[in-house]
């Protein structure tokens, strides 16, 4: 099998006449593993649920933490989807569920038209989906050299050791680390930024189509963070990747992503194109989250805290809308009726914009709700 994602093959493809044929579906058509075409979501998540039991004993039922409580979204091929939210909202649990590092209690994952567990085996799925973890030190085995860490995955999938090492050197070069200097080193000899580059190379060694970046740059200092973000953008083009970018840093998310998914207490609060969400947030929680971003302009300094209090306990989430105890525009109906995702429009790029707020749902009983539903 030849490498489909190398820059060389990209250049060859673009030189084919007429160029227009190639330009429009550029990101997806080049991948021979593509099955459903550009319209088919790369990953379709339906009803993802994970509850953790805590404090249980053999003699009694413990309480249940609703870490992820019914998450649905479609991931478009070639996009970067940002997942944002406060600590404890279920971002990382979602990532681990998508990666199948823990079994979900419910939910379906459909990868490029094939259901995981059905037409698609877990082994095959894991070849195509990889993850970069937050803690660059803990995610590298301290007893393995850099090249062995990167080469481990391909070797598991049957690549001979010599070729796997060659591939590791190739990838080290692509993430900006000179193989001759770094391949034989151990993780503790490198800086945080260098280690995170290695973790990225390790994920890419499997030649994935989807990379989940779980707070991948959060632990780095700002200058290194910028370098790694630029590297991620370059690699996305070069390897034709789709990203799920999980972060609590809204500035970084705005820089990186095409669409944003806002999570609150294990549920999706809002999903839409980046500009739509950042400029016209449809959910009061998103608005509050955006207002909490420190302004660079002293004249626009936020004087009042946009959000008060901690998020409610996910062991016992409030009835109705989970955000209503902290919401500035909550009404009586909000503590009774649980909001569904309601469309609020489409942005210029055609991305659907929707929010789980009764203000957006026609006929919900909220005084600000529209009379007629916005067509999805």
């Amino acid at each position, binding site marked *: *099998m030849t490498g489909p994602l190398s820059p060389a093959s990209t250049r060859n493809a673009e030189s084919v006449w007429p160029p227009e044929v190639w330009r429009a579906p550029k990101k997806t058509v080049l991948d021979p593993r593509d099955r459903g075409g550009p319209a088919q979501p790369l990953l379709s998540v339906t009803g993802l649920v994970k509850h953790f039991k805590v404090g249980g004993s053999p003699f009694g039922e413990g309480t249940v933490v609703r870490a992820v409580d019914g998450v649905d979204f479609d991931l478009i091929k070639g996009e970067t989807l940002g997942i944002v939210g406060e600590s404890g909202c279920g971002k990382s649990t979602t990532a681990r569920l998508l990666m199948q590092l823990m079994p979900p209690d419910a939910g379906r994952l459909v990868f490029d038209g094939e259901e995981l567990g059905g037409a698609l085996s877990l082994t095959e799925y894991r070849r195509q989906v990889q993850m970069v973890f937050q803690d660059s030190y803990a995610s590298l085995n301290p007893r393995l*050299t850099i090249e062995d*860490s990167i080469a481990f995955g391909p070797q*598991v999938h049957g690549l001979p050791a010599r070729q796997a090492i060659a591939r590791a050197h190739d990838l080290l070069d692509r993430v900006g680390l000179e193989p001759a200097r770094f*391949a034989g080193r151990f993780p503790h000899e490198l800086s945080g930024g260098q280690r995170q580059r290695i973790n990225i190379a390790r994920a890419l060694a499997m030649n994935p189509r989807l990379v989940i970046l779980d707070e991948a740059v959060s632990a780095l200092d700002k200058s290194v963070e910028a370098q790694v973000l630029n590297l991620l953008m370059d690699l996305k083009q070069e390897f034709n990747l789709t990203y799920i970018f999980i972060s609590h840093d809204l500035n970084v998310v705005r820089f990186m992503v095409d669409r944003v998914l806002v999570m609150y207490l294990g549920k999706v609060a809002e999903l839409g194109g980046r500009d739509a969400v950042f400029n016209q947030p449809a959910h009061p929680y998103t608005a509050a989250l955006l207002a909490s971003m420190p302004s660079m302009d002293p004249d626009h300094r936020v004087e009042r805290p946009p959000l008060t209090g901690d998020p409610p306990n996910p062991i016992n989430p409030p009835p109705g809308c989970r955000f209503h105890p902290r919401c500035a525009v909550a009404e009586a109906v909000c503590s009774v009726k649980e909001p569904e995702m309601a469309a609020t429009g489409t942005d210029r790029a055609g991305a659907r914009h929707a929010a789980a707020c009764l203000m957006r749902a026609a006929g919900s009983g909220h005084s600000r709700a529209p009379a007629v539903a916005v067509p999805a």
Partner: protein
Amino acid sequence: MVSLSPALPAVPTVVARSPGYWSGVFTRLSRDKLAMAALAILVLIVLMAILAPYLAPADPAKATMLRRLKPIGTPGYPLGGDELGRDMLSRLIYGSRLSLIMGVTPVPVAFVIGTILGVTAGYAGGFLNTVIMRTADVFFAFPSVLLAVALSGALGAGLLNAMVALTIVFIPPVTRIAEAVTTQVRSLDYVEAARTSGAGAAKIIRIHVLPNVLGPVFVYATSLISVSMILAAGLSFLGLGVRPPEAEWGLMLNTLRTAIYTQPMVAALPGIMIFITSISFNTLSDGLRSAMDVKA
């Protein structure tokens, strides 16, 4: 299939390599003067055991009732004579053989079995973990000396049974350490990352878990050798290990205990040997611990 890109650059032939973890440990250990002194003493004791027939000036079993309990320095008896007039120096030299075999052997055996059990329990978790660890907890209910005495009493006196009893005594603590370290390592991101690559449990344990678990368990096991030496001597002292007329330090302490008032120096000699060996193992273990206690 994981594919290689066609634009693969030539593999660089010269790669700067860092020294591995274990070579670093040995470098640091070799700079530890106290640990090196302990190691030198242990090497001497082991050589003494191996070369006993060439070193011993007399037959350790030859009794002469006329020359009982000679003091240290008696001509022909450099370290005196025991209660049956046997040459103490020869008996101490020969005694190192059985004492070392009995004291040291249970530890590596318990290390292997305990590590297998502990890593299995730690990695598998759930029901298997409960079964293995609760069984180990049963053994913790008894003090180790009492357990060793009870087990070798039940198995019957004898060298092999005493060693089996000591092995059983040391398996639960090794299991517990191995399980604790494995549980900790298993939740680290690099093991999760290995799982995302689709590797099986056996491969993950071999490459990612074991190399990071063996170090701490190994250090703990070396510290058990000194305990094991003392317990082994104790079993022989109580008549549950080696039987007379074999030379073994614990047994010699027992048979000489009646002479503690007439020849206290001679009677104390086997105890001194046990003490020196035991503290040397302990010092070496401490040195190993600090040599291994670095990042990575």
